């Protein structure tokens, strides 16, 4: 089963757990599984069911961003982090 690494800013929503092992063959299935276990993690998803823009996903600490549809296997680590972004005001 894949492991989900919980970002520090959300660890209060998992009772302090920083990793959670869940079932799932895609990133989405795994994240939905952890949300069933810890409903407060529902903040990860937007109203449209997609990943909320305030978060980024990776698998096995690779630099490449992962998507919800990416496959995962037993032993994979899904890494969730808060996005850090912004933009200047219009001229």
């Amino acid at each position: 089963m894949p492991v989900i690494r919980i970002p520090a800013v959300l660890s209060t929503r998992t009772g302090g757990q920083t990793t959670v092992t869940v079932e799932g063959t895609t990133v989405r299935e795994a994240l939905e599984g952890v949300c069933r276990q810890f409903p407060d993690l529902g903040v990860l998803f937007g109203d449209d069911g997609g990943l909320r823009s305030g978060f980024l996903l990776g698998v096995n600490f690779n630099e490449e961003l992962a998507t919800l549809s990416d496959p995962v296997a037993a032993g994979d680590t899904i890494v969730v982090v808060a996005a850090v972004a912004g933009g200047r005001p219009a001229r």
Partner: protein
Amino acid sequence: MTLGPATLAEVFAHCAAAYPDEACGLVRASGLVRGCRNVQNELHARDPERFPRQAHNGYAFCFADALFLDASLTSDDPVAVVFHSHPDVGAYLSDEDVRAALVDGRPALPVHQLVVSVLEGVVAEARLFAFVGDTFAEAGRFDSSGACIVRASPGAGREPTVRQVDGAERTSEEAQCR
């Protein structure tokens, strides 16, 4: 934390070097600066609808830098300030900056926001913002030498705190100017 001239000199150099693009980075509680990689152009190239901004008018930490920040939060030297530059528009916290910093109306990260104004490639000033109550308020202003020229005290009686190396807390007023 220490946000003094030496720390700000590093921040400003990173911002000036990125011009005309936006720069971004972070400052740890110890004052250590990490210039981060702005991947806004890569995101835009991949999905221009989801990421309409480019590096000249937006910034996004790469995944490794975002992970570094996250990991620091449980270390003895947590990130205390996220900075980015605004080329040629002034040191304001834009609507997009605020939108991106909040989740459900609360800061996604326990950090202050430093915005650096870069005009024609030269740093003009920087302004520090702290989340107080339900909004961001100016907590300090610095000139191009890194000297503190305005020491604000947002939300009198409820100053925001910055986590310290020893786990103690200080008000933003203590944290912002040295």
